[in-house]
């Protein structure tokens, strides 16, 4: 089943109690900047949610508490709903693996889990699959069946051509009509500055950007016993490398790259999270969402 394939119950169980809440939406709510297009200035009540420690007490419905001695939070439609756009890198390099699961599969699981989370929160979710151009676009929506559409598109995301952030992000900006959360799931084989150059415009338009940097353990700490002929999966270029270089200089460079991405992300106010494919997804997501909640 498409729905179940990328939704690992163990992963979902771990993250079901967490929320992916847009900071901007929260801020907007507090500031009263956003209006519901359907109800004018009034805030339409959507539902109650059980209070959990850490929730904002301003949303507690004290009347319900007085009646029931139970603490519930009010949730409102409209401004509480955020727009989640998932950008899934399906370039050729994402097909790499040194064990059973490729980076692309891992990214699929990650993307599907986030889409599911958004669906649970009644947020509008969308998907863009890209390599050197946009390969598939699911317009963000909270309509019925949206999750299935997203998961279907995730299912059909196959490794494509080379990675080029510039072209798809330029095209992507045309599809953005509302502020929300933009999650980019990629292996980011590009110079950090160039990545930020393409992503920063999204920030300037009020979107919250999250970068999930997915790497295989072999890419972070490759092991070579002897000289090997390596072939680039995107360019098909071949190069003979020595174990000595792999064990020393390569590691320095990849660490520098990761650090560079993290720094640039911090500078740009972009969330950056490195995850390797040998790490259980539920643990990785939980960690990220918990940290994120803490920052909020």
């Amino acid at each position, binding site marked *: 089943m498409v729905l179940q394939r990328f939704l690992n119950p163990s992963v979902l169980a771990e993250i079901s109690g967490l929320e992916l809440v847009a900071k901007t939406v929260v801020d907007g709510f507090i500031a009263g900047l956003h209006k519901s297009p359907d109800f004018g200035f009034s805030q339409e009540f959507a539902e109650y949610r059980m209070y959990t420690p850490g929730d904002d007490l301003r949303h507690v419905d004290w009347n319900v508490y007085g009646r029931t001695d139970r603490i519930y939070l009010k949730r409102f439609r409209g401004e509480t709903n955020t727009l989640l756009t998932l950008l899934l890198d399906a370039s050729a*390099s*994402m*097909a*790499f*693996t*040194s064990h059973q699961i*490729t*980076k692309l599969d891992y990214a699929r699981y990650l993307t599907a889990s986030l889409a599911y989370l958004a669906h649970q929160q009644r947020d509008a979710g969308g998907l863009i699959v890209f390599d050197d151009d946009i390969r598939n676009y699911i317009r963000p929506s909270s309509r019925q069946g949206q999750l299935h559409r997203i998961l279907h598109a995730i299912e059909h995301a*196959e*490794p494509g051509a*080379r*990675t080029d952030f510039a072209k798809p992000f330029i095209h992507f900006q045309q599809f953005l009509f509302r502020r929300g959360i933009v999650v980019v799931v990629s*292996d980011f*084989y*590009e*110079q950090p500055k160039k990545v930020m150059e393409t992503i920063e415009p999204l920030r300037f338009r009020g979107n919250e950007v999250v970068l999930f940097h997915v790497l*295989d353990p072999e*890419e972070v700490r*490759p092991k070579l*016993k*002897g*000289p*090997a*002929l*390596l*072939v*680039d*999966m*995107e*360019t*098909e*270029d*071949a*190069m*003979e*490398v*020595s174990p*000595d*270089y*792999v064990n020393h*200089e*390569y590691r320095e*460079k*990849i660490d520098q*790259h990761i650090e560079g991405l993290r720094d640039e992300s911090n500078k740009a106010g972009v969330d950056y999270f490195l995850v390797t494919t040998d790490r259980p997804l539920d643990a990785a997501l939980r960690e990220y969402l918990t940290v994120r909640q803490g920052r909020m």
Partner: protein
Amino acid sequence: MGLFAPWFLAGLAALGLPVWIHLLRQHKQTPKFFSSLMFFERRTQSSVKHRRLKHYLLLCLRLAVLFLLALLFANPFIERTAPAASSRKLVLIAVDHSFSMRYGEHLEQAKQQAIDIVSKLGSGDRAEVVALGSRVDLLTQPSNDRNALKAAVRSITPSDATSSYAEFARYLRALPRSTHMQVEGHLFSDMQKSSLPSSFSDLRLDDQTSLTLHSVAEPREPNWAVETVSSPPRIYGTRKARIQATVASYGAPAARRYVTLALNGRTVETKPVDIPENGRAQVTFNDIDAPYGFSRGEVRIDGNDLLSDDDRFYFSMERTDPARALFIHDARQTPEYFRSALEAASDAAFALDVVPVAQAAGVSLSRYAFVVASGIGPGLGALENSLTSYVRKGGGLFVALGPASLAAGRVPVTGDRVSESRYAAPEGDRYRNVAQTDRSYPPLAQTGPLEAVKFYQTLRVDTGDARVAARLNDGSPLLYEKRVGEGRVVVLTSTLDNISNDFPLHASFVPFVEGIARYLEGGEARSNVATVGSYIELRTAKDQAVAAEVIGPDGQRALDLKQAASAPIYQVDRAGFYDVRPANGRRQLVAVNIDRRESDLTQIPEETLALWRGGSLRPNPSPAAGNHGPELYPLWKYLLIALFAVSVAESVVANRFTLASREAPPPAARSELPVEAEREKATVGGVR
């Protein structure tokens, strides 16, 4: 350096194979797909250099393996000279203790001279003592302990053996190779000419050996001996024996001697004999009566020559009742010809019982020396079982095939198939003759010519692996033998009745019958005379479980338990009487005498001795340091070790190289790229 088999160097052509593999053939590597080469840089120098180094190392090792292999087969050698003469040498003290050394004080003189040589040994010299008889008996290991060496010499006792200088020379040749020392040989002997081998080359010595011959004999040493005694091994019934003795003189003047015959220690008769100078004379003792059973006989001459032990000759004789033989015949076969021939044979050793086949089943066969089955046909039943059992236990069966045998379709006991009855053709001579005769077959040894015998009818038999002793002119077997258990079956493919052939009318028939009778009775195999050093047969069948026994001249058992149970032969080493009970139960009394070659004390001519010593005419040239010529030393052992070491190294390096070249398979979505090891396709890491 040289090569014993240089043509194997052609194998060096195989060296081209690893050269082609490593250098000429393009190498293909399995590429490893990686997500991005963004952070990699070309390291051509170290990686390729590193791989080339392993390539060349592997290439060299493989070339070395092939080279060593080709060289190993070519079997190289080097010439090296024997070690330079040193003061260390091995002195071989050989004392002849054969029978002839009993003459006078020869042995004592030899021992004394040997002790004198031991006393003169240098401080660094090592010596060993051997006793020479029919073989070389090592008495000490190489040693410089003079007391031990002297004690060994003193322990030498006279033996009854003959001496063999060929054995001594063979031992002398082997010593330098085994000890890697120069050898100085000293032989103390009477230099008896009869001890020389038939081929003088058997006495050769090598360059690292010197030989000094110490003769203890005088040029002329007269000796008389009883050379031989001829007596019947068995006498039957009341017959008396005729015993003939030959007396010889060796280097002795003409003389009259008195020859005495004794039986069982009792003097029977004494006769004078005139023996010519260096000649022989015969003495005959007639009508000698011996008691029933085995008798121990001795013929001796009087006289006081210095070698008295050859003045007597032992012999044994057995008085026994005539052996009984059984003749089983078909009604149409007459036993008369066979009976007459048997009775006409010398010594009347056999008495023939005749039984028709119909009455033969109840006869106990065990008391018969052999059985004749003449023309018997089918339906033997219990009789054949009895015959088979009798033969298996050691009995002898003579089968003459007749017309009834054709009806049986097979030969009794052996089961050989009788395929047809063959008549001589009506045209031509109407009979067949004997065309091939094996005169080494004992029954035919004294038979005389058989070619004149006419065979009108014979039976064709599938003899299988039997020994065929005679064939007719059409190639069909006439006489053959098969062993069954401990016994034997001799088959004549024709009758004994003067009908199918005229054999009984020929003079050869009587000796043929006698030969068959004695052969089947087993008497020929039992010899009652032997010489010291010869062998007595104890058993024939491998799985014979019956123990044998030998009582020596001293009255003691000569076999231990294991030998008694399994030894097939026994070597006699002393003169005297041996009471032998072989596994087949037929007791023998064997008289063992000294080999009479030892009685002839004629010495080896001096020229021959000089040739043996090494060509010098000086009586006793000083021991030479040896003329050390080049020695061809093969190197195959070292090559084999080197080949093994290089092979192991090649395996290790090749294994490591293979592991390094083995990489993970590419992703399933992408196919293998046929990427050659071409450095031009590489890109230096950069931004895409």
